[in-house]
């Protein structure tokens, strides 16, 4: 913020040295933090560019010989089917997200803006769902999907993700709606807007930012999930990226190092790009949703 307008003389020179020394511990801590966070990921990225002979012949910390060797990516994509795993994940994640948002925002609106008997109880009922571990619902769901003939389709994933995403979404949306003064809605009602008009023209636009944040949080929960996807897709064609990656490395991991590194990298890079653009929102959303373990 402040600009240094002093002329550069010997006196300010020594002062500058003093300043550098004073800042040294901070700089060291900073460097250490960056190194601890970034170096493993850089090592991973470098590994994805190495050939099998390099993996066996060169030390693990050596740089790749050809930085433009993307063979491993091609092999992970084609032989490892990483591409179709990502497509499966997208096919499970985005419909679930849409349902979570539509139903969750509406429910938050009903629980916070509308006045009716028993809404406190219903909110508590949703809250209870935040703490229930996935293990507690998996087996009855597995039986139910089996009986309904849904096993082997994408529906078990979409339905289960939608239901498990709702408690936190409803809770967060109720909190956001609580922050809007009731007078806003009352004024709209006086002007003759019916309740659906109020929801679509006033309430939803006012929480649009919050909706985006909540969607982002749920995206990470669903995209990164292993428990639910392992339960419902482990043997089928609908394996998500997490299940597929685990199976792929289990199968190739100890023989084909390059494609394994590349497959992990593909999974990391997509998230990294998203995070570069939206990190402030992601941080805000995830810490706000920290009630979920």
């Amino acid at each position: 913020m402040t600009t240094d307008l002093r002329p550069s003389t010997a006196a300010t020179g020594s002062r500058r040295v003093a300043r550098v020394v004073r800042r040294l511990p901070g700089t060291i801590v900073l460097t250490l933090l960056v190194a601890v966070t970034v170096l493993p990921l850089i090592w991973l990225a470098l590994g994805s560019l190495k050939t099998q002979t390099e993996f066996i012949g060169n030390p693990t910390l050596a740089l790749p010989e050809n930085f433009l060797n993307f063979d491993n990516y091609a092999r992970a994509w084609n032989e490892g089917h990483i591409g179709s795993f990502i497509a499966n994940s997208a096919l499970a994640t985005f419909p679930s997200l849409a349902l979570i948002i539509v139903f969750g925002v509406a429910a938050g609106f009903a629980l916070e803006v509308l006045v009716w008997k028993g809404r406190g109880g219903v909110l508590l009922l949703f809250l209870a769902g935040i703490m229930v571990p996935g293990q507690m619902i998996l087996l009855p769901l597995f039986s139910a999907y089996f009986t309904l003939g849904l096993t082997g389709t994408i529906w078990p994933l979409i339905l289960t993700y939608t239901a498990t995403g709702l408690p936190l979404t409803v809770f967060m949306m109720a909190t956001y709606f609580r922050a809007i003064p009731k007078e806003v809605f009352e004024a709209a009602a006086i002007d003759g807007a019916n309740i659906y008009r109020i929801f679509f023209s006033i309430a939803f636009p006012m929480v649009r930012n919050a909706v985006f944040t909540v969607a982002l949080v749920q995206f990470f929960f669903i995209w990164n999930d292993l428990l639910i996807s392992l339960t419902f897709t482990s043997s089928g064609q609908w394996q998500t990226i997490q299940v597929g990656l685990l199976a792929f490395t289990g199968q190739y991991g100890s023989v084909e190092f390059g494609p394994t590194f590349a497959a992990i990298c593909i999974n990391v890079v997509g998230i990294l790009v998203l995070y570069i653009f939206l990190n402030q929102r992601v941080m805000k959303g995830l810490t706000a949703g920290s009630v979920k373990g």
Partner: protein
Amino acid sequence: MPSIIGGKRAILVFIGPALLIYTLIMLVPVLVSTGYTFFTGSIITGFTFSGFDNYIELANDSKVGDALLFTLKYAIVLTVGQVLVGYGLALIYVFWLRRASGLIRALVFFPIVLPTVAVSLMFQKLFEVAPQNGPVNELLNFFGAGSVDWFGSSGSAFFVIILMDIWRSMGFYAVLLYAGLLDIPEEVLESARLDGAGGWTLIRRIILPLSLPVLLSTIIFSINGTLKVFDSIVALTNGGPGYSTTPLTLQMFRTAFSYGDYGYGSTIALLLTAICLLVTVFIFRSSRRDLTKG
């Protein structure tokens, strides 16, 4: 003045779909799962009523006992670790890096959004010993120490699990606690500094007591999350070597899907849920206590 009551139909339209899905896919299964605890078998083999057999088995099952102990050990060690490291980072952000901390906050936060499977596989490679030394063993060799088979013994495998989860979550907990530290009024710190408190004294006498509420709720959130650990352990050690790093969640998963015993699996799930419920009740009590404190 028309109040925003809306007709019964409007209420049903707004809350109905969410409540229906939530009830059918979460609430009913919780009850059904509890019902399963009195049966043995699975959807494929069929269920037979077994009374309290599952509960008796649960009480005498040494594998479940071990898994329970591991879950508690993991939850306590990781909670202490990630909250301690997170708090340290938050202090560094607030009092040392100050305004320059924005970028570093975002950077250190990043690993928490990475897929747990990807992070676990990366750590497998980092700590690999065969067929090729990973960077960690390479560094050990460089300093003259021998390579360690990290996933070969339960102690070192546990160490890697904890290290990985702290790496993943420290930035997240730092930001969570950072927000709490920012709430400490600047005047309080200023007057303490004027009175001669600095460094360690300032932290121990002023900052720590004032950030105690947020610290407490963070600890409880952390325990609640760590009790449910599944992804990271499945992908990193798959419960091994042997069963030595198997938490309740994984033991339940194996019982149900590898051994096909839904009844006993549900009984283990119920035990886990009961523990989570206890912790959650604790959350509500402590957050209420915070409210009355103002």
